[in-house]
């Protein structure tokens, strides 16, 4: 439980006292204990404070939570944008100027020489299953299981999708405005 204490003639606004650890904590962003106070406000809300949470602390905690959600949403979005291992990736080509130019005899002007360029290479899907040897007292036996790479890919994508689904709209709006 945290409480607020002031010091007479102090150049600092106030101190936060934690009665669990007997620690006095300054209001200073570069102090790791202060960051833990903000984490506790994010996780526990007013329950971790004796009396009302000072407005300044609540604002700092809200800003920290927003920054974390934005970072998590960014990471999750990047993860979901990666290709699905079990599907693979198709090749993408674009018709681009090569840098060379030739005279267009019809117009008398210089025209760019164009060529198809592969901008995204194709990647084959990984094998859906793998076979491994299982050892026991008997002869080793073969066992076919889902490819662990696919298992991990699905799990990570599921986690990333859960983060995206749980992200508040103001955070998504901030991401889209970046």
């Amino acid at each position: 439980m945290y409480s607020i204490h002031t010091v007479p003639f102090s150049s600092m606004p106030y101190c936060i006292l934690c009665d669990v650890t007997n620690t006095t904590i300054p209001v200073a962003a570069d102090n790791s204990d202060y960051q833990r106070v903000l984490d506790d406000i994010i996780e526990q809300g007013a329950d971790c404070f004796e009396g009302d949470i000072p407005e300044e602390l609540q604002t700092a905690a809200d800003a920290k939570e927003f920054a974390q959600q934005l970072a998590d949403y960014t990471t999750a979005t990047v993860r979901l944008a990666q290709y699905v291992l079990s599907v693979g990736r198709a090749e993408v080509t674009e018709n681009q100027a090569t840098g060379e130019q030739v005279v267009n005899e019809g117009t008398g002007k210089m025209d760019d020489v164009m060529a198809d360029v592969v901008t995204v290479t194709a990647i084959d899907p990984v094998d859906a299953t793998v076979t491994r040897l299982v050892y026991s007292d008997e002869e080793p036996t073969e066992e076919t299981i889902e490819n662990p790479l696919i298992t991990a890919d699905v799990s990570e994508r599921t986690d990333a999708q859960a983060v995206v689904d749980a992200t508040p709209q103001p955070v998504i709006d901030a991401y889209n405005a970046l």
Partner: protein
Amino acid sequence: MTVNISKPSINIREKLAELDKPSGIAGEAVLRADSVQDVRDSINAGRRNLIINGGFDVWQRGTSIARGSGNTYHSADRFLAYTNSAGNARSTDVPSESPHTYSMKVDDFTGSLIIDQLMEVPTGTVGPFKAGTNITISYWAKGTTHVKLMNRLMFRQSGGSSTNEVSPAGLYDHTKSNSLSSSWQKFSQTYTMPAGVTVGSGIQALNLSIRSSDGVSAVISPAAADEIFITGIQVELGSVATDFEHRSYGEELALCQRYCYVIGHPSQVIYLGTGSMYTSTAVNLSVPLPVQLRSTSPSFTRVTNGTGNWLNVYVGATGTVSNASPLQGDYTQSNLRIYMTGAHSGSSPSAPGAGVWSMVLAGAKLIISSEL
């Protein structure tokens, strides 16, 4: 006319052999050096280890901490051990071929092993860890055989908090794990800082995190009875793990005290500072610091002794023992103003303006922390 000239004979074969000095590659690099600085650079001499207290010599807060004490700074200086999932203690079990005196023993697991140290960088920058820089991590470790350790590097604002964390790809690889055995082994890994890493304005450190791993994809929890020992942790720029850089205890302590200063002794009363009574019960104390703290705003943690008190404040010959809460009076650089209510009795001679002197009781501590 014929002139005869005589010269001492020389053995050309011997002279050629002298040119082929057995200096080795490093020796030749030294011979080719144009300056003293070149020599120092070529042999990677001095000031290599970016980890403070990597040999676990300094334990200002205490030499052991039980599990369940929170994921923060508790025992070995500069190391943030996740003691919600394991206890740790100073141990004299060290590799015999190393010069180390102590190691950290981690045991009583209910979760994963995580030992962090945040290496300070100028705020909002990546410090010396620029794109393309090789960063080599090395340490000695041993433990229960099925446990693996892996290393992770990420930029952080503060210890134990992933908010605003920047974890560059390439500085975290589950597969680069170290399989422990019951014998001490020295492990090393080199990572290369990728290009294009930017950090936010709040970033203060590159966090080395040593974690228990399955070596494939995840952090795992060792079994309750498992034990892990580690010492000689070094992080250096470059692609080679050089020998552990030893600093004297005094220098290592001073480096630690930029981040944490503990006043107190298990069996001795330790002088704290002088000051004056603000009211008949509240006191202002002036406490000097041996090293300028990292931050102008440290935290204070009071640890009481068996009587439930930590402080003794004297006005004249009249002392009052208490468990007063120390509050920081002003921002600090080399000297602290600590303000405490209930630090004296309120009865004569404790009048406002009266001079006081104070001490930390035997078995008690005042921990002044400016940790990252």
